[in-house]
């Protein structure tokens, strides 16, 4: 009886899972087919090969795009990690005047969507001569209100006894941060890193308006560029490129899955 119930549950779960992943599955399948078959609508074709992937790597700058995305995502993540950790530490453990007000100010910037900041940011980066460069692509993202908030919530869970103990044995702020706070909040830190990496790997709007050459284009913008440059004739190659771009995201997700669950939950548990 329960077995039947389970089978029933799994049947529906698998059905919905297939439905949800259909676009990706169709994409993977299409990336293996010759473009002529895709254009003619022969999705059941059996001319499967990796030719599209070979063509994508040989004839398009997709590897350059991916390298750029890696550099940008890693630089931003590293920058945010340092700045957000320090800021969150201040909000969690230090006492200073207007602390609450300043923290509220931080949170307010979260309400402001990035799209609203694009014009002033663009003007700044343009005036600095940072258009089409790693500096222009990364530095505007170094400060993150979300990151400060998320890490502050995690740091607040460090038991006060540990803080007092560290003061008793004479640890200074950075020693306390590195030896106790960071190890204690490890899962949040990992989640934060993975989350920021994924977010900036997938950045679209900002790289779109600040990159002008293939030397600095990122994957998402590059994919659009490939599509605009050579659409009709090469759907197979475009699908192959899209799947290639998807791979790092999938790897990060698979590795970080358990952390994602743990980390994103902790923020909401205790304030």
């Amino acid at each position, binding site marked *: 009886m329960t077995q039947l119930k389970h089978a029933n549950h799994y049947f529906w779960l698998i059905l919905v899972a297939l439905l949800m992943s259909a676009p990706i599955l169709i994409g993977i399948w299409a990336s293996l087919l010759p473009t*002529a078959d895709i*254009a*003619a*609508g022969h999705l059941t074709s059996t001319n499967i090969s990796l030719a599209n992937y070979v063509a994508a790597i040989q004839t398009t700058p997709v590897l350059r795009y991916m390298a750029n995305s890696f550099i940008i995502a890693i*630089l931003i993540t590293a*920058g945010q990690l*340092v*700045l957000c950790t*320090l800021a969150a530490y201040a909000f969690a453990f230090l006492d200073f005047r207007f602390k609450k007000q300043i923290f509220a100010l931080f949170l307010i910037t979260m309400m402001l969507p990035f799209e609203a900041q694009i014009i002033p940011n*663009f003007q700044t980066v*343009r005036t*600095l*001569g*940072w*258009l*089409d*460069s*790693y*500096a*222009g692509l*990364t*530095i505007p993202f*170094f400060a993150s209100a979300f990151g400060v908030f998320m890490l502050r919530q995690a740091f607040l869970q460090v038991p006060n006894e540990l803080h007092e103990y560290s003061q008793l044995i004479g640890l*200074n*702020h*950075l020693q306390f941060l590195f030896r106790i706070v960071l190890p204690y909040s490890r899962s949040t830190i990992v989640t934060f890193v993975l989350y920021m990496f994924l977010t900036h790997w997938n950045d679209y709007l900002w790289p779109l*308006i600040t990159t*002008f*050459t*293939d030397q600095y284009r990122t994957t998402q913008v590059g994919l659009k*560029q490939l*599509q*605009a*440059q*050579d*659409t*009709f*004739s090469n759907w197979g190659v475009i699908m192959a490129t899209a799947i290639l771009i998807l791979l790092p995201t999938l790897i990060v997700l698979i590795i970080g899955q358990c952390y994602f669950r743990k980390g994103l939950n902790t923020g909401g548990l205790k304030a």
Partner: protein
Amino acid sequence: MSKTFWHRWGQLIAATLAVLAVVSGIAFTTTARNAAQASSGRIVISFWHSMNRPNGQLLDKIVDNFNQSQTKYKVVSQYEGSYGLAESKYINTLHTNVTPTIMQQSDIPTMTAVGDYVPIQQFVDADHYDLNQFYPGILSGFKLKGKLQSMPFNASSSVMYYNKDLFKKYGVKPLSKSPSYSEIRAAAKALTEKSKGAMKGATLQIYPWLPEQLAANQNAVVVNKDNGRTAAATSAELNTPAMQRTFARVQNMIKDGSFQNYGTGSSASVNQMAGFLAGKIGIFMQSSAAAGTIAKGAKFKWGETFTGSCGRRTG
């Protein structure tokens, strides 16, 4: 007192300085790159263009050949999207580190509106370049008050493309060299009806250049002051009899049910081309520059005619 201060805050200050160092490091390499590009021995000429697909590949080949032919200049060509997109990128980045040296644009009015460019006439005069090798008709299209504003590079004209195989399959008479509007409408209707809805007879992309061409074909302008050539245009003349006739014709084909609407925006022309190449469209109007794409992608016989006329064409 100061000792405790450093003891407590020294490391934090050091960490902050480290972050600042990283930031300025990234910023510095950026600035250094720009300087290095200019001092690599060759003069870098950045070139923005809007040529994609086979035309873009050909352009890259031309640029490569030029770069290999000499060692003084290095042209860096970069596809920047459609004419419209490239234009807005140009306007938004004027006088910055990414401003191109040379840019390909579709027509004079857009660039005169931006204003910030050097008319090619200055270089023609300085080099005593012989302009007689160009067709006078094409040359006049790039002139403003007798002065050449930009170098004719890829002058294209609007044409109609049609799928000869589909015309044959459904027994429709092929289009003539310069088809009249009624001929196009009849062919589109016949194709749609005989294919029993498997395809649509014709389409016209929602793109300003096309109605402009259709109006020009009737000797009409779209803005005053002779399309802005005698002086800066001050008003649009869109609601003219010529434009009304143009859209009435599209409307007629829509009423016939033989018109496919591919919408507007950046994917409209892509979808239109895909539709034509997949044999879902009989006739469509596009720049003669699209011939390369069709030649490469079409698995059927296709034909090219002059832009559809209304029997009033004078030229």
